[in-house]
């Protein structure tokens, strides 16, 4: 077991936790956090794939690394958008919740892209 | 020459690690927020200082050594100011904040 496998497994577990938080947590802000966790788990899996493909004197394959850099910036832009939506929701309705039909309806998930 | 420099590195870096240990003990054991803050910032900064001192002979060239020292200075400065900020927040809300 080397570093690549280890952090890849760590990334896989983070994807699981992030997805769980996204599905079960009713607060929109916490959903955004969970979505970010999910995303960074995927990035770590990419990192493991990049490290595994080390060749030509490099520590890792630069193509997945460049993709992760792009993805981090895009994830930040999406998070900013999601947060702005949550705050606008609060301004309009005075509540920070996604369910409109009372208890039980927590499966709708907006605000994340 | 080189073995002496290596011994110096080992000694200073070990001293730095010891200070990190002390800082964590303080964080665990001290009774209130202000003393814990003190343990985290002051002792850990000293630990970092020793680590940087120990790494100086191993760094590549004068530029690398200067960079190490300036990182330490940056951490030292920003750490000191941020600690003041946190302590101000503690005072505003009472010591148990």
């Amino acid at each position, binding site marked *: 077991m080397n570093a690549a496998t280890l952090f890849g497994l760590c990334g896989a577990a983070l994807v699981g936790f992030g997805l769980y938080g996204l599905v079960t947590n009713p607060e929109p802000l916490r959903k955004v956090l969970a979505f970010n966790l999910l995303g960074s788990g995927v990035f770590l899996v990419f990192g493991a794939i990049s490290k595994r493909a080390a060749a030509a004197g490099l520590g890792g394959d630069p193509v997945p690394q460049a993709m992760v850099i792009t993805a981090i910036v895009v994830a930040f832009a999406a998070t900013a958008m999601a947060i702005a939506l949550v705050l606008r929701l609060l301004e309009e309705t005075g509540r920070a919740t996604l369910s409109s039909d009372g208890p039980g309806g927590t499966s709708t998930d907006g605000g994340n892209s | 020459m080189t073995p002496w420099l290596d011994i110096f590195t080992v000694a200073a870096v070990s001293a730095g690690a010891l200070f990190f240990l002390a800082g964590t003990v303080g964080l665990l054991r001290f009774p209130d927020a202000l003393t814990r803050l003190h343990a985290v910032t002051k002792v850990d900064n000293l630990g970092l200082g020793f680590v940087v001192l120990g790494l100086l002979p191993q760094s590549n060239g004068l530029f690398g050594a200067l960079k190490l020292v300036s990182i330490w200075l940056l951490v030292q400065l920003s750490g000191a100011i941020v600690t003041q900020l946190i302590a101000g927040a503690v005072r*505003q809300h009472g010591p148990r904040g």
Partner: protein
Amino acid sequence: MASFLFGVACLVLAMVALGLFVILRRPAEVDQMMAAQLLGTGGVAILLLLAVATETSSITDVALMLALLAAFAAVAFVRNASDSANEAPKGMSGQ
């Protein structure tokens, strides 16, 4: 020398982990604000040790970045706490 530095990095990482464990479990927000501070020193020490141990000088740049942004994050934490205190005195959770 490299494995010694790695060993020290392990030790510092363990200390940071222990500190974070304690800090994140304490209910008072003031304690939680120290988390960024802890990584600002401990994380920088780990990265500098790794930079020399693996002979990759660019890791020093990551340490520089971490030092700058840990201070930035700490400011954001304090801003948040002082905001909430001004708006609602009961906003802070007691111990």
